[in-house]
């Protein structure tokens, strides 16, 4: 069974540009999470989807970040416009249900120059 996949694995963009990250959860997992690790800091929660609905988006840093999960399958996280402090590794995780084990993808390393 395929695990959580993320695309791209790396992205290098200039400040002010737009980037869209994609996450494909494990098939059948209704819960999808986005996390981010900024260099030198801990992994931090961004938001949680249950199917296509946002269950908790308390970790989203500001309105430059937009997450969607149309149809309740894959999810995208768009950063527009990107700032230098957005650089980091963005992880996606999925779980069968709330409170169940979260399976993490390999992450997308975003570098904003």
């Amino acid at each position, binding site marked *: 069974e395929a695990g*959580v996949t993320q695309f791209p694995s790396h992205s290098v963009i200039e400040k002010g540009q737009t980037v869209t990250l994609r996450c494909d959860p494990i098939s059948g997992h209704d*819960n999808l*999470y986005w*996390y981010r690790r900024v260099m030198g*800091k*801990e*992994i*931090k*929660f961004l938001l*949680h989807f249950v199917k296509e609905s946002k*269950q*908790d988006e*308390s*970790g989203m840093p500001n309105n430059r970040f937009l997450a969607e999960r149309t149809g309740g399958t894959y999810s995208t996280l768009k950063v527009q416009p990107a700032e230098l402090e957005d650089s980091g590794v963005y*992880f996606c*995780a999925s*779980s069968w249900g*709330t*409170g*169940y*084990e*979260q*399976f*993490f*993808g*390999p*992450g997308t390393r975003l570098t904003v120059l």
Partner: protein
Amino acid sequence: TQLLEQSPQFLSIQEGENLTVYCNSSSVFSSLQWYRQEPGEGPVLLVTVVTGGEVKKLKRLTFQFGDARKDSSLHITAAQPGDTGLYLCAGESGYSTLTFGKGTMLLVSP
């Protein structure tokens, strides 16, 4: 804001040595999880502890949850080079939201 402090941040040991990694918080969590992360990959769950005072063993790894459910430790016996990696603790406080520590980078040399 709930914080998890992990110590030490880095640990370099020889094969066969024992080690303990600590995870401390001022807050109570409903459960505490330990993950291991290797370069280029996401964190992989090792164990979840739920009950205060709980001890779980996974081969040479022993995990303990403090009585007050605020702290935890990971003890590795006779470390091997394959144990090298980043060890993360994460607390869960309802709604599946995880709060992570910064991690302990372990290097085991042959």
